[in-house]
């Protein structure tokens, strides 16, 4: 009786803010295949094959440890088969033809005392044969009392090292230049640091509509050139691409999601982008998921994009040797692009069990760029939930 009375007294004195055990893990797996082709490779100075295939495997775990803490973990492995990087040394089918990217991140999130605000942090790591990146992110979000307005802010920092040789175990670490340009040390720096401030406002308009606004600010400093990109000049000379040591970027995006009728959703987004390389860009996207049954949704989508090219871009053999900065990377040129495709989602209703299948998504996208690039992406996403056995 004394023990029972003591326990009851303890419960009476507990605050409203209590931690409840409900450990569950949301598991997401992505398998993706990407291919592209064109004849404007920056490795060969704006001409030559850009044939590329990428095979992506990605696993993400969100573990809700209790009613307070969430731990995020993800890891991925990309296999990249690139014909353009094979031309760094002109030895066809050399080691540079196939590369691998391995990446992982670990994050933690929990609410502050009033439970209206949440803070989080995340550490990430990524490695390729010619690239190593460490990342750190801090985030803060706040939702109002009526749960109709959410404000988010995050600061992301990436510290990159562009030296080649990560998969060489003999200690080789150096910038890799095109084979015929290796008698010159083109750059005395090999680091690239990026700082991104991303803000967000998600506003509920009514029962069927929400609006998100996402301004951002990015600053990059260090080696922003890719050391194995060639540039050819009008006087038939050749150099390694050279871009400024810093770059400011300002994007602002908006997304309006509306549930029209009982089965049809419209997702519209627009983004304006500006940077001090001279690029301004407009992106417009429209998706129209249709729920053909309780468990199945089909999502046709279209995305239109236009960018003004960077001041430093010129095609193959069009640069003047008097220019300070130069590139023939068509990703920085003036172009328009369009992407269209279809998504399929199967999400059966299921009672929570120890392991619950939640959804399967299959999505195909076809991309065309006005400079001739054609790309295709096929993505499979599988989502399930794993947790404690619910009480009877």
């Amino acid at each position: 009786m004394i023990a029972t009375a003591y326990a009851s007294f303890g419960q009476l004195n507990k605050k409203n803010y209590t931690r409840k055990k409900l450990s569950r893990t949301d598991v997401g797996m992505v398998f993706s295949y990407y291919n592209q082709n064109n004849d404007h490779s920056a490795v060969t100075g704006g001409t030559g094959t850009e044939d590329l295939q990428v095979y992506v495997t990605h696993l993400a775990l969100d573990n809700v440890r209790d009613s307070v803490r969430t731990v995020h973990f993800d890891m991925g492995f990309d296999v990249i088969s690139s014909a353009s990087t094979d031309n760094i040394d002109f030895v066809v089918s050399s080691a540079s033809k196939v590369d691998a990217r391995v990446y992982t991140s670990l994050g933690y999130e929990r609410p502050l005392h009033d439970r209206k605000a949440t803070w989080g942090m995340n550490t990430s790591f990524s490695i390729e044969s010619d690239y190593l990146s460490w990342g750190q992110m801090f985030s803060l979000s706040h939702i109002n009392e009526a749960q109709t307005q959410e404000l988010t802010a995050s600061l992301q920092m990436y510290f990159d090292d562009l030296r080649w040789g990560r998969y060489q175990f003999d200690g080789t670490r150096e910038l890799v230049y095109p084979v015929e340009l290796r008698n010159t040390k083109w750059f005395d720096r090999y680091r690239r640091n990026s700082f991104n401030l991303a803000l967000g406002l998600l506003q509920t308009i009514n029962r069927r509509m929400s609006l998100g606004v996402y301004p951002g600010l990015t600053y990059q400093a260090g080696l922003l050139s890719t050391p194995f990109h060639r540039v050819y000049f009008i006087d038939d000379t050749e150099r390694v691409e050279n871009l400024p040591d810093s770059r400011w970027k300002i994007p602002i995006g908006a997304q309006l999601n509306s549930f029209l009728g009982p089965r049809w959703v419209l997702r519209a987004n627009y983004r304006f982008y500006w940077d001090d390389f001279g690029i301004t860009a407009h992106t417009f996207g429209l998706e129209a998921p249709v729920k053909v049954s309780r468990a199945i949704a089909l999502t046709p989508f279209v995305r239109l994009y236009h960018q003004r090219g960077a001041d430093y871009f010129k095609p193959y053999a069009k640069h003047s040797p008097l220019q300070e900065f130069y590139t023939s990377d068509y990703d920085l040129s003036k172009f328009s692009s369009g992407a269209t495709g279809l998504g399929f989602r199967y999400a059966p209703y299921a009672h929570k069990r120890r392991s619950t299948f939640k959804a399967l998504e299959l999505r195909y996208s076809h991309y065309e760029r006005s400079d001739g690039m054609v790309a295709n992406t096929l993505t499979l996403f599988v989502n399930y939930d794993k947790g404690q056995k619910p009480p009877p």
Partner: protein
Amino acid sequence: MKCSLAAVFMAILASCQVVKPYQRIYLNDYEMRPGYPGARGFEQYVFTIREGSSGGGGAKTSGGCGCN
């Protein structure tokens, strides 16, 4: 142009309604999630590599080579 966009934005905010938790069935639907959930994420990552722009609610803006 900028003024008219700001006016539209302010008009949308002014028309916001209070939505009770039991009225959020449409807002809580998966297809209404903001950003690029599920299979959409990888496409956004590709766009940041193949195009000169990034950020503004899309995929992460650095942390990889993307130089192929």
